[in-house]
């Protein structure tokens, strides 16, 4: 199982804070997870997750979309941070 979390603008656009996704071996990297979510969610998800500045996090660490994933991972998508 994968846990997928969304924050800020993306969470709002999707009206979704988090979801659980069945792990499958074809979900090799975060990129495939994103494509999978978009194929299931349609245009709204396409628009929110295909923005060029989406930040990808894996297990509480920012990574490239091409980073490989494993079963049990926590994945997150969010816009650039604006803290401080």
């Amino acid at each position, binding site marked *: 199982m994968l846990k997928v*979390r969304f*924050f*800020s*603008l993306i*969470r709002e656009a999707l009206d979704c804070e988090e979801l659980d996704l069945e792990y499958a071996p074809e979900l090799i990297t975060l990129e495939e997870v994103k494509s999978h979510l978009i194929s299931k969610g349609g245009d709204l998800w396409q628009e929110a997750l295909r923005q060029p*500045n989406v930040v990808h*996090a894996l297990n*509480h*660490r*920012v990574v490239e979309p091409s980073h490989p994933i494993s079963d049990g991972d926590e994945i*997150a998508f*969010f*816009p*650039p*941070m*604006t*803290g*401080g």
Partner: protein
Amino acid sequence: MTVSVQQQAFDIQAQYELLLGSRAGAGVATFTGYVRDLSEGGTVTALELEHYPGMTEKVLGEIGASAEQRFGLLGWRIVHRFGLLGDQEAIVWVGTVADHRTEAFAGCQFIMDSLKTRAPFWKREHLDGGNALWVKSKAEDLDRELAWQEKQV
């Protein structure tokens, strides 16, 4: 050497004392960031801070440890609020202790610059008309963060 991510307001004097503890250093630098009504969208009635629990604490801890090693800090402390904040409330407080003032200053500034672009916080401005706008990230903040990666101090 501590991080606090909290909803409730903090007292600056208490933070300063927690920073110092039993650690002595010749210099202590601090920075406090406040909510300011400087929005282009209208009058800001409140600022809302969303964050990513778990990741936030981890990233802030890594930033502090990295500053400690790079500038030889004797002590450091990062406090960052989330939730709803009123105008002029303190959002963030960073304090550093070092044997020399240049290291205390550089460490404090490094932590502030790093958390701006790396700590998973997102600001939303609540305006007096009832609208709420997500604050956009600033290119200059990213530039400052990248500059630290390039320079050796």
